[in-house]
C-alpha cells in the first residue's frame, strides 16, 4: 500500500510538472497551430491527472471536452483567422503586477490549507460523509458522483444543461447564416478534397461511426455504475456526427441532419429535464424530488436519474452539433464570400 501511494505521488508530480512545462511553452509559442495542439495535450494530461486523483468522471469529461471538442473548435477557428500571433506584446508590466499579486495572495492562502489527502480535512468530515455512506440507501446508485450530480444537486446539473443550451443559442446568434438552396453545389466543390484524398480514412471511419454511437449509448446507460453519464454520452455522440461531417462534408451532413430538428432536440432536452421536476412538483414533492415519482422511493430515484440523464444527453449532443455546424458553416460562408470579406478587411485597414 505504501509503495503504491509513493508511485501515485510520483506520477502526480510528473504530470503536474508536465502541465507547467506545457503552459510555459504555450506562453512562448507564436504559432497558433502549435498552441492549439499543446492546449489539446494540456487537456489530455490534466485528464490523466484527474484519474490519478480518483476523479474518473471528471477525467472522462475533460478527455472528451478539453482534449476533444475545444481543441477541435479552436482548430476550426484558426483556419478562419490565421495561424500566427503578432509578436507585439503590450502592457507586460501590468500583467506581471496583477499576476504576482494574485499569485502571492493565493500562496499566502495555501499555508493554512489542509494538506493533500489529509483525512481530517473539513471537507471529508462535514457534508461528504453522508453522500458516501448513505447514498446507496437513499438513491441506490453505486456511482456516488452520479448520485450527487443527478439527485442531491440536481438543480446544479439543470443549471449546467441550461449553460450549455445558452452557449448553443449564443453561437447560433453569432454565427448562423441564412442559406439559400442553390448554394449547395458550390459548397460541394469546396468539400470534395477530403473525399478523394483519403479513401482508407473514409472506410475506416465509416466502420467507426456506428461503433462510436453504440459506445455513447453504453456510456449513457452505464453512468449509474461506472464513470460516464448523459453529458459524456452526449459529447461522444456529437463527436460521431462531427466525424461524419469532417469526412463527407457539411452539405452531405446537412441532408442527413436537419438543423431545425437539432435545435428542437436541444430545446426538448432542457424541457424534458425541467418536466421531470415539474412532475414531481405535481406529485406533491418538491422540485426534483424523485422519491414521489414512483411508489417506491428508490425506484423513483432510479427513474428520475434515468430521465434527467436522457435530457442532459439530448441537449448536450445537439448543442455540440449545433456549435460545430455553425462554426463549419461560417467557414464555408466565408469561403463563398471570400472576396467580399477581403474587401471589407481591406477597407477597414485603408480607413
Amino acid at each position, binding site marked *: 500500500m505504501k509503495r503504491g501511494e509513493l508511485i501515485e505521488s510520483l506520477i502526480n508530480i510528473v504530470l503536474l510538472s508536465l502541465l507547467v512545462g506545457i503552459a510555459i511553452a504555450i506562453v512562448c509559442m507564436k504559432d497558433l497551430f502549435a498552441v492549439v495542439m499543446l492546449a489539446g495535450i494540456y487537456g489530455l494530461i490534466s485528464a490523466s491527472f484527474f484519474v490519478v486523483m480518483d476523479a474518473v468522471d471528471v477525467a472522462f469529461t475533460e478527455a472528451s471536452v478539453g482534449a476533444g471538442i475545444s481543441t477541435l473548435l479552436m482548430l476550426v477557428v484558426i483556419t478562419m483567422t490565421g495561424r500566427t500571433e503578432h509578436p507585439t506584446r503590450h502592457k507586460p508590466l501590468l500583467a506581471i503586477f496583477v499576476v504576482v499579486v494574485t499569485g502571492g495572495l493565493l500562496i499566502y492562502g495555501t499555508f493554512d490549507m489542509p494538506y493533500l489527502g489529509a483525512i481530517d480535512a473539513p471537507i471529508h468530515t462535514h457534508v461528504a460523509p453522508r453522500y458516501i455512506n448513505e447514498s446507496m440507501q437513499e438513491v441506490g446508485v453505486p456511482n456516488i458522483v452520479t448520485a450527487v450530480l443527478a439527485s442531491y444537486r440536481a438543480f446544479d446539473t439543470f443549471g449546467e444543461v441550461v449553460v450549455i443550451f445558452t452557449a448553443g443559442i449564443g453561437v447560433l446568434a453569432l454565427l448562423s447564416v441564412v442559406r439559400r438552396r442553390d448554394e449547395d453545389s458550390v459548397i460541394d466543390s469546396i468539400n470534395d478534397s477530403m473525399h478523394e484524398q483519403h479513401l*482508407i480514412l473514409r472506410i475506416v471511419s465509416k466502420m467507426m461511426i456506428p461503433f462510436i454511437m453504440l459506445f455513447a449509448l453504453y456510456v449513457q446507460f452505464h453512468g449509474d455504475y461506472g464513470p460516464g453519464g448523459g453529458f459524456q454520452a452526449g459529447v461522444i455522440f456529437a463527436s460521431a456526427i462531427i466525424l461524419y461531417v469532417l469526412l463527407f462534408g457539411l452539405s452531405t451532413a446537412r441532408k442527413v441532419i436537419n438543423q431545425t430538428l437539432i435545435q428542437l432536440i436541444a430545446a426538448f432536452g432542457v424541457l424534458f429535464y425541467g418536466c421531470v421536476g415539474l412532475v414531481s412538483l405535481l406529485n406533491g414533492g418538491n422540485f426534483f424530488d424523485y422519491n414521489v415519482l414512483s411508489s417506491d422511493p428508490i425506484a423513483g430515484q432510479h427513474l428520475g436519474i434515468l430521465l434527467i440523464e436522457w435530457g442532459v444527453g439530448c441537449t448536450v449532443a445537439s448543442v455540440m452539433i449545433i456549435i460545430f455546424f455553425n462554426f463549419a458553416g461560417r467557414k464555408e460562408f466565408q469561403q463563398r464570400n471570400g472576396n467580399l470579406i477581403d474587401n471589407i478587411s481591406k477597407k477597414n485597414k485603408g480607413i
Partner: protein
Amino acid sequence: MIFDLDIIRELISALFLFMGSFLCISGGVGILRFPDFYTRMHAVGVTDTLAAAMILIGLMLQNPDGLVVIKLSLILLMTLFINPTASHALAKAAFHNGLMPLIEKNKKNNSLPDKKQESEKG
C-alpha cells in the same frame, strides 16, 4: 498447479510489458532524434502500434476477468485500426501538400530547421 500457472502468467505479462515499454521508448527516441518528418513518422508508426498492443496484452494477462479483458481488447482493436490509418493519412497529407522527404539532393533547401536543430543538440 494453479499457483504455478499464476506465476507463469505474471512472468509472461511482465515480459509483454517490458517489450512494450522498450518499444515505447525506442519510438520516443526516434521521434526526437530522427532528421525529418518521414523518418520520424516511420519511427512512431512502426513502434507505436506494436508497443500499445504489447502493453495491452500484458495488462490483459494481469487481470484475466470478464469485462476488463473485453474493454482492453476493444482498446487494442481500436488502436490496431486507428493508428495505422492515422499514420497513413498523415503521411499522405504531408506528401500531398508538398513536404519533401529529406534525401541527399534536396537536403539543402528543405531541411534547414532540422539541421540547425541537430547541430544545436550537438
